[in-house]
């Protein structure tokens, strides 16, 4: 067998080995997305004749929901990234308390978002635990739950995702950063210069990847926004679920349009972050 032949056989074998993972993803996601696109374009109506139309895309207030969803995801991810990075730095600092901190922050990870949302509601609502503890009357307590600024929603996502980000970043930092920061210190770099010129660049790929995962998850997540958000305007996933479960069967194509939009936004976010991560990885 020639070298080219061997290489061809090798790549065929690799393709075959990957197939068990790829097939279910393509079948499930591909089929779901295709049917959602067809439904949103009026080509597979539940009643009536199939007819190509953009009515479903025009009927909903997609623009407002997109802006709101992006804002919630960006805000929560930004906070989670900062908090997660700080946690990772504290955990890898080598102090005696760092192990306790690591255990506490990793305890957050197995708690489901739904439970987290309920807890956040009980804590931050105007008759919740926090205002009672502080002795503030419900009327004087800011509307953190169901209020204008989606504070409780952002806080829940930030709390949960920061632990995830901390876990990923701490894994990278603990294995490689100590010797580099010692080298940098001996080259005259103070605490801030070490963080700015060594720790942050070395943590960047892991930080970027985990932030991207957190952003895309928050963008497509339903339960926290539904529980702790205000009724209107609605973020994309809440809007999609409401339209899909509506008694008005004509709202199904609109729900599909919202779902397709959410998936497209998630895909764009993943592609953009993959691209910048590849650039970061190429530098290292």
């Amino acid at each position, binding site marked *: 067998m020639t070298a080219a032949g061997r290489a061809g056989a090798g790549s065929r074998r690799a393709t075959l080995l990957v197939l068990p993972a790829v097939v279910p993803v393509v079948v499930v996601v591909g089929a779901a997305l295709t049917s959602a696109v067809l439904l949103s374009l009026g080509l597979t109506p539940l009643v009536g004749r199939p007819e190509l139309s953009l009515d479903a895309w025009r009927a909903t207030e997609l623009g407002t929901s997109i802006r709101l969803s992006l804002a919630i995801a960006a805000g929560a991810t930004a906070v989670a990234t900062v908090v997660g990075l700080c946690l990772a730095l504290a955990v890898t600092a080598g102090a005696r308390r760092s192990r306790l901190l690591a255990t506490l922050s990793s305890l957050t990870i197995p708690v489901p978002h739904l439970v987290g949302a309920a807890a956040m509601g009980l804590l931050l609502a105007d008759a919740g635990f926090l205002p009672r503890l502080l002795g503030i009357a419900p009327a004087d307590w800011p509307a953190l739950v169901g209020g204008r600024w989606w504070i409780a929603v952002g806080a829940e996502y930030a709390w949960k995702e920061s632990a995830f980000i901390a876990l990923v970043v701490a894994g990278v930092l603990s294995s490689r950063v100590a*010797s*580099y920061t*010692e*080298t*940098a*210190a*001996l*080259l*005259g*770099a*103070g605490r801030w*210069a070490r963080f700015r*010129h*060594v720790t942050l*660049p*070395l943590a*960047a790929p892991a930080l970027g990847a985990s932030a991207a995962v957190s952003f895309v998850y928050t963008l497509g997540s339903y339960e926290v926004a539904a529980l702790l958000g205000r009724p209107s305007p609605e973020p994309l996933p809440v809007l999609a679920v409401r339209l899909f479960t509506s008694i008005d069967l004509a709202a199904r194509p609109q729900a599909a349009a919202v779902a397709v939009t959410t998936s497209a936004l998630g895909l764009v976010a993943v592609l953009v972050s993959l691209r910048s991560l590849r650039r970061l990885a190429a*530098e*290292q």
Partner: protein
Amino acid sequence: MSGSLQLTGLTRVHAAGAPPALDDLTLAVPAGSCVAVLGPSGSGKSTVLRLTAGLDTPTRGSVHLDGRDLAGVVPERRGMAMVFQRPLLFPHLSVRDNVGFADRVRGLPRRQARERAEHHLELVQLGGFGSRPARALSGGQAQRVALARALAAEPRVLLLDEPFSALDTGLRQEMHELLADLRLRLAPTVLLVTHDPAEADALADTVAVLAAGRLQQLGPMRELYARPRSLAVSRLLGGRTEVPGTVTGGRHRSALGELELPAPAPEGPGVLVVRPEAVTLVAAADADARGTVVQVRRRGLRALVTVEVAGRGTEPAAVAAELSPGEEVAVGAEVGLRIPVTARCVVPPAGLADAREGASAHDRQR
């Protein structure tokens, strides 16, 4: 640029009750000199560097640089740079920006830092490599860049932690020449840690031998080879001949017979140690002792032979001799041994070594 370093009574105990990793080390590194700390793995030699650099805090003792006590001074303000066994080039920076790192964090504008980096890259013969990514270098090149990066920080003391031990023999030789050249041009103060006597010999003016955290002997390498103060030092420097016996009236009595010593030695039990390269095989008439060749090992053009000398009423003694290039001898041959008087050295037996050596190493420093 170069400063003088003084370590005094430096001690580091990692855990209460555990033996100290470093025990009462006093060592001076004069400005512009190179002092090597030589010792086997676990002897505490890297601890010396970490304590000097401020990466670890001594349990007792002090580090003075140009007369200033560095207690409580953070590593970045000590004016030292260190090259580790691994190059540890920052992977996100180019070669040029790695070398310019110290200047950048010092606040120098990027362009100026890069110009200076190019100059330092030329010093380590890597001019033109500046724009390469740090990970695109071979092991030897990366270690050169690490050296250039440390020099660019203009440290008052350059600390080298086994910097060439991961390189192959040829590259190591090149790095030794490079460092010797840099010493001639820049005269930095260097504190080097190594486990390789040849490296210490090639680079250092003075060598401190460390074993189990204690300073065993301090002096020029030639002196350590010729006059080891203990079995540990002799073994670390490749000494193979150890003949137990007794010293009386300036003579060593053993299986080799009665041998005159070049310098007065303490009376009583003592082990005669001799470098293999000092021993020659001669005709029986001129010999100090006679024996049988029991082992021949090749060392390039030379052969290292072990000659067993049967003692009269004592244990037989084994003497190692390195032959001249081309000289051959067969196993089983009866040979005569010539051990020049100046090459004879008596050290305390293993049991007595600790007490006597500890005291004598201490005396030397006072």
